[in-house]
């Protein structure tokens, strides 16, 4: 894949620059655009974004490595992020992680062989009142039960089989 924004994304990028007094301040939103379009932040993406923002590769690397939401490797189509901080842990986050591990056959930090699912343990998602909570891509799923999770994952898996190129989260 050649690493270059489409005209449409370039337009979004220009819009970002208007929001800040410096070019550098657009780095995080630009990296989000890059991750959306290219799937993850590869070395090529870092070089490309550095060029757009007049940053050195080292500077961009420095930013990317600080933030947990930037992925440095290819992720599954559905990135499952299970909160394991205290409020969720008190209400069974560990069971949820175990359940997903055996259901998907992967450990936290891994991606299924068919590239459909990645599993991550993450820190408090700010949804403690509806714990246990998780995110899949950009959407929250709260007050989780194992049953709810089964239905959700099965639905996502079916959707992926029927329409492997479908973009965006399943509601």
């Amino acid at each position, binding site marked *: 894949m050649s690493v270059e924004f489409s005209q449409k994304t370039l337009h979004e990028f220009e819009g970002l620059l208007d929001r800040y007094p410096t070019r550098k301040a657009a780095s995080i939103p630009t990296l989000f655009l890059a991750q959306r379009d290219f799937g993850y932040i590869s070395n090529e993406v870092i070089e490309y974004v550095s060029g757009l923002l007049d940053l050195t590769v080292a500077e961009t690397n420095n930013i990317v490595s600080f*933030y947990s*939401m930037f992925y440095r490797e290819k992720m599954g189509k559905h990135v499952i992020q299970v909160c394991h901080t205290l409020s969720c842990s*008190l209400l069974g986050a560990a069971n949820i992680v175990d359940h997903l591990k055996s259901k998907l056959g992967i450990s936290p930090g891994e991606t299924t062989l068919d590239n459909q699912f990645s599993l991550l343990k993450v820190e408090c998602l*700010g949804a403690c009142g509806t714990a246990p909570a998780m*995110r899949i891509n950009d959407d929250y799923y709260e007050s989780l039960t194992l049953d709810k999770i089964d239905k959700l994952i099965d639905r996502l898996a079916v959707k992926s089989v029927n329409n492997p190129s479908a973009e965006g989260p399943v509601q």
Partner: protein
Amino acid sequence: MNNKIIMKNMEQPGYTGSLKDYEAEGGYSALKKALGEMSQDAIIEEVKKSGLRGRGGAGFPTGMKWSFVPKDTPKARYLINNADESEPGTFKDRAIMIRDPHLTLEGQIISSYVIKCNVSYIYIRGEFYREAEILERAIKEAENAGYLGDNILGSGFDHRIYVHRGAGAYICGEETGLIESLEGKRGWPRIKPPFPALEGAFGCPTVVNNTETLANIPFIINNGYAAFASIGVERGTGTKVYCISGHVKKPGLYEFPMGITLKELIYDCADGIRDDNNLKAVIPGGASMPVLTPGEIDVKMDFDSLAKIGSHLGSAGIIVMDDKTCMVDACLNLSKFYAHESCGQCTPCREGMGWMKSILDRIEHGQGEPDDIDLLLEITNNIEGRTICAFGEAGAWPVRAFVTKFRSEFEEHVKQKKCVLAA
């Protein structure tokens, strides 16, 4: 309860948080009043006299913070709405953004007018993607209605609000880490002074206020400082949105005048402990604040009352633990969080958080040594007061409180060489 400020609109049946709904409840009348008939100084006075203190954790008086911004600087000024909401146990700002976004926007525009700021930001944690979309939509609505943009309501005041998403780092909630992050860098907190009011974002005077703090401003402008100051307690005026999570029957958000007791919140609002177990421990103000025992829950939930018993109101994130909960495990859980989230700039914090985590891990798993318990306390002493930002305390206080208040449980783990509560 009619005494609500923050949740008054959102709890009405059918209320969507749209501009139309917000205006129907009197929304943006405070902006009209502020821009139409009040000077900057008059607003600062009003907010000072209301007694409003920041809802982001530190409880700094809001009017006073604004007054530190120099009046006659040629520089731009910035205001940042801190919607990073990452303190474990806290989930109130998210509700405001989803259910009544214009409430915090109106407060943000008025506050920006006060410090003569033409561009302000909402720094929202990256995980709140949908919430950021909601805010973007609300900003568009406000622009179309003339509440944002050039010459707002004919006042000559120009203002724009941009949403800036973080990317997964708790430390970016700390105001100088946040500013660094907004500038497009790692969220490394700055050494203070200089304070942001003089030199903050992009080298310019900057005010950082929490989402809930700003959401209180329209009420104060509409109703006057006295109406606000008459709610709550002395030095803790107004209401607070309390977040209750953990082992209670009805977790959620409860807005009450400051000074309601912790016991009332747990047993009357949240309906008590799940499965009719007993209460064992409760964190009153987000994960960073020292844990309390059942004997301490008559405390009033305001700044001074909690400080008096050695804890803090913090973000008012109340995490309730029942008597089946292992205190070593709970403490370990939090220490993992702090070890993971330390930005790594200061040695005592970076090393200390990781060290405490590994000690707690071995105690929980039956490999602790008798000296480990005092070692934990010693490490907390070596962190406190020796770091660039308050994250050091945020990570040290919980460990010290768990170890001190539940010491015998830690000792039992060491003695029996296993978790004494594991089934």
